[in-house]
């Protein structure tokens, strides 16, 4: 990045002030194209910051933590053109450790082996238009330990709803990640198991943003919240390039889609028979306030 030296002369100082105001609000990043307004999330909780490393992929970016050995977020820019161009998924893929990370910081396949947990994608492979981007999504730098019923159930439904909304809106900026809430956390191998997973969506067309959060268990309930509340929950400023009023306002989010319409594409010719409304499958329940209150109490102690 180009940065000029500032001299303490009145005119230069003014110029410097102007320049610093124009700087993006986000963290330093090698791949701004994956982030809303080109601004990467800023880690606010200093305990989350240590042993983090950005990994830029073709179609998404993660901030990886060598403490949890998971991403702290995985960010992607979904466009209608890309989703429509998306080839059918490759017939063969491979989970793999992220070799660009230091060995002591990265998850290995053996950390997850015999744990009973799924390797849950944060940016899902079905979002991506190219085989190479799909293959990269199987990096363990994009995975968290996730309960299978959650990954295959409500979380897959949220991923499908996100694709459908991106098709409708034309584009969305999306980030997804884990939350680790409470005094004790489960660990498999050397990898921490998140208590919650979340997905934040920003629609440039609507100028609105909002988030889903679910507990990492067999739940069929989800909560929605504003970006500002999610940021408090996870300790990361997720959309630093957006005006505060957008981060505060929240957004009407679609219900997670039923398992029969996960692809976020037009229904394949199955007639009307399978078209059961998804409304009853997953239910909206506002539990985010309880989590935020608990975090608020913990901070006061």
């Amino acid at each position, binding site marked *: 990045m180009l940065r000029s030296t500032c001299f303490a002369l009145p005119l230069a100082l003014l110029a410097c002030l102007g320049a610093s105001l124009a700087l993006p609000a986000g963290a330093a990043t090698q791949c701004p194209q994956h982030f809303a307004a080109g601004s990467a999330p800023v880690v606010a*909780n200093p*305990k*989350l910051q240590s042993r983090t490393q950005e990994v830029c992929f073709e179609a998404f970016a993660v901030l990886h933590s060598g*403490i*949890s050995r998971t991403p702290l977020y995985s960010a992607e820019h979904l466009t209608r053109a890309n989703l429509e161009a998306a080839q059918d*998924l*490759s*017939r*063969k*893929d*491979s*989970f*793999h450790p992220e070799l660009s990370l230091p060995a002591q910081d990265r998850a290995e*396949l*053996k950390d*997850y*082996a*015999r*744990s*009973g*947990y*799924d390797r849950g994608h944060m940016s899902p492979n079905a979002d991506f238009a190219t085989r190479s981007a799909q293959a990269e999504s*199987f990096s363990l730098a994009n995975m968290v330990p996730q309960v*299978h019923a959650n*990954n*295959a159930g409500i979380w*897959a439904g949220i991923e499908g709803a996100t694709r459908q909304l991106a098709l409708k809106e034309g584009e969305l900026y999306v980030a997804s990640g884990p939350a*680790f*809430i*409470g*005094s*004790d*956390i*489960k*660990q*498999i191998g050397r990898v*921490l*198991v998140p208590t919650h997973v979340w997905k934040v969506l920003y629609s440039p067309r609507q100028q609105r943003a909002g988030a889903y959060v679910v507990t990492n268990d067999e739940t069929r309930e989800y909560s929605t919240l504003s970006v500002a509340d999610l940021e408090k929950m996870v*300790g990361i400023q997720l959309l630093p390039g957006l005006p505060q009023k957008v981060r505060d306002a929240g957004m009407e989010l679609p219900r997670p889609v039923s*398992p*029969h319409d*996960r*692809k976020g594409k037009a229904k*394949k010719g*199955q007639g009307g028979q399978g078209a059961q409304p998804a409304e009853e499958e997953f239910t909206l329940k506002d539990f985010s306030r309880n989590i935020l209150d608990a975090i608020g109490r*913990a901070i006061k102690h």
Partner: protein
Amino acid sequence: MTEQFKPYANEADVIRIGDLEIENGVDRVTLTGDIVLTKDKAGLALARELQALVEKVTKALEDDKALPEVVEVKEARAVKNPFA
């Protein structure tokens, strides 16, 4: 595709039959998603792939002389939250 898939041989392989995603693991093979077997030649091809997969899984389990009643899972440990 299913020819190269060796059930329970590794933690890495992912293959797809229709919209069914099959993940390999040393202690489990997981099938997620759905598959529509249409009454046509494409449906028959998918059905044969699925049959080949299930036969391989069944054989691997039958051939395991020490097959347990219930697979053993390593319990997750509780650790102090490093981020709290």
